[in-house]
């Protein structure tokens, strides 16, 4: 019985939904250096882990780059095996017939430099010393990611992306693309993002980093060499982050004040525990089993340092006057980490810079996480926009 099931699962399209990209296999490539970073330091070489979905067309004009957010990686859609319980992180939006339609686009998703899912990062070996990089890994900026992504585009033969797409920190990379390589993208899709973090955002990130670094097992970041792991610190960091990605309303609807154990009756010794507590602990624990603490520190710092207009006299209009692509912006009403106000600032700057822009403020109770979740309006706007992108690219092919 079991064998038959396994055989069936192997045949294409049987085990997964029809609009899934199905089983995907990550690839990796090591780029020869020297690769100069924004901080001035140089990597002799670096590896990027990536996945692709769909087919690159003859003139290589239908490429879509997916930039990941803080804790994301290369596995954005589909499954790694028949037994995979969960698909890639943006599976709701990437696949046949989905907004980023793999029947039309060749989609590239990667694990950023500094990541901990196969790309070169703090948990990799420093070739110069033969030891793990750990805290000595150079600090990164969004522009370093953009430059490495451009090298990945070169490797794939993609001179111009049909679109560079990203949510949150991914949106920041997409915006940076529009300024660093104006000719290399037609469209820039920025979802639930901002031109820079607010003081409150930075405060949350700092608290998360403090949770990690004050864990006794952190060992100044040399935990891998010393065979320890600041699991608790990382779990707390993730819990803090997680709260900020949800909304008060969303949490309330999901958990309310429901108890998991104990009661409020007098004289009962059992500890009262709310459902939301155990949920957060579970999120934190599962994250700390799969993510590198130094990478978390590095990525949150990159977030903090991001300031789109810093080199343009702090004038976003001046910054965006370098952009040559068209923009789609989406925000979500209950997102307080990257509030709609932040997206409106981007829209205003783009309009003043005379850059084509479309902006939709989508009603959602799901907070910042809404950009990953099903939402009818979001899907429709996103799909309609990407449909035009595909039409534009195809018109050029036939012309």
């Amino acid at each position, binding site marked *: 019985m079991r064998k038959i099931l396994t055989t069936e699962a192997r045949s294409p399209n049987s085990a997964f939904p029809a609009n899934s990209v199905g089983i995907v296999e990550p690839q990796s490539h090591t780029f020869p250096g020297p690769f100069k970073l924004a901080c001035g330091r140089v990597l002799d070489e670096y590896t990027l882990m990536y996945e692709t979905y769909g087919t690159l067309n003859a003139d290589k004009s239908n490429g879509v780059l997916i930039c990941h957010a803080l804790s994301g990686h290369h596995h954005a859609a589909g499954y790694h095996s028949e037994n995979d319980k969960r698909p890639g992180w943006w599976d709701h939006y990437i696949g046949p017939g989905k907004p980023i339609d793999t029947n039309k686009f060749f989609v590239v998703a990667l694990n950023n430099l500094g990541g901990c899912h196969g790309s070169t990062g703090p948990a990799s070996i420093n070739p110069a010393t033969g030891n793990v990089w750990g805290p000595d890994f150079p600090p990164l900026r969004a522009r370093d990611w953009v430059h490495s992504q451009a090298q990945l585009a070169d490797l794939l033969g993609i001179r111009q992306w049909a679109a560079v797409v990203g949510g949150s920190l991914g949106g920041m990379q997409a915006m940076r693309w529009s300024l660093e390589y104006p000719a290399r993208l037609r469209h820039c899709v920025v979802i639930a993002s901002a031109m820079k973090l607010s003081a409150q955002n930075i405060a949350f990130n700092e608290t998360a980093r403090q949770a990690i670094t004050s864990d006794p097992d952190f060992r100044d970041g040399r935990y891998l060499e010393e065979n320890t792991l600041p699991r608790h610190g990382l779990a707390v960091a993730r819990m803090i982050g997680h709260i900020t990605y949800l909304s008060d309303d969303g949490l309330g609807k999901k958990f309310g004040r429901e108890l998991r154990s104990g009661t409020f009756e007098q004289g009962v010794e059992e500890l009262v525990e709310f459902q939301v507590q155990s949920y957060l602990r579970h999120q934190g624990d599962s994250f700390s089993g799969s993510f590198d603490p130094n990478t978390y520190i590095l990525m949150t710092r990159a977030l903090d340092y991001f300031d789109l207009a810093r080199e343009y006299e702090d004038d976003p209009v001046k910054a965006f006057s370098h952009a040559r692509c068209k923009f789609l912006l989406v925000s979500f009403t209950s997102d307080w980490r990257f509030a709609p106000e932040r997206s409106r600032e981007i829209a*205003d700057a783009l309009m*003043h810079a*005379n850059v084509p822009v479309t902006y*939709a403020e989508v009603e959602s109770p799901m907070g910042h996480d809404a950009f990953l979740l099903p939402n009818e*309006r979001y899907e429709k706007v996103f799909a309609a926009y990407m449909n*035009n992108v595909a039409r534009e690219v195809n018109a050029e092919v036939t012309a």
Partner: protein
Amino acid sequence: MTRKDLEIIADWVAPNSRVLDLGCGDGELLVRLAQQKQVNGYGLEIDPLQIQKCVERGVNVVEQNLDKGLANFADQSFDTVVMTQALQTLRFPHLVVEEMLRVGRECIITFPNFGQWKARWHLAFSGRMPVSDLLPYEWYDTPNIHFCTFRDFEVLCREHNWEVLHRQVVSESAVSGVLKDFLPNLFGETAIYHLTR
């Protein structure tokens, strides 16, 4: 709904200019202006369904509530600011027109004429608020909260020292089309004003 107003607006907008369309609806005017005048424009809209139509047509549309003002736009940052058939839906129409003339060098406004004979007839003889093709709402569910007539708008322009560059009246039916030239406030269905300061 008649969109004769859109043809006239296209005549008044300069080629290759920068246009902001307030309450742009499904983006029809911006499509027209882009095709006929190579106009570079943005539409502001609040209705998700209309925004969706704009996105499908490839029109630059930005979600924004006009009742919250245009403070996010710099002085004179557009050549022309347009608002078709939305004036009557605003909370403070006069403040929005002031803002339009700050943000744009010129503005073009169209609105339904509540002084038209049909509306007058309806109210006078049935004693009920008029419901027509142009104004297809009942009084309780209408987005229109500030109806005015041509004469009312003329008074508003004078009081605020807005200079009227052009004014025009359009009507759908042939009879009204002729009569509107003699008695615009009675026979005109839609008013189109081209203003500056």
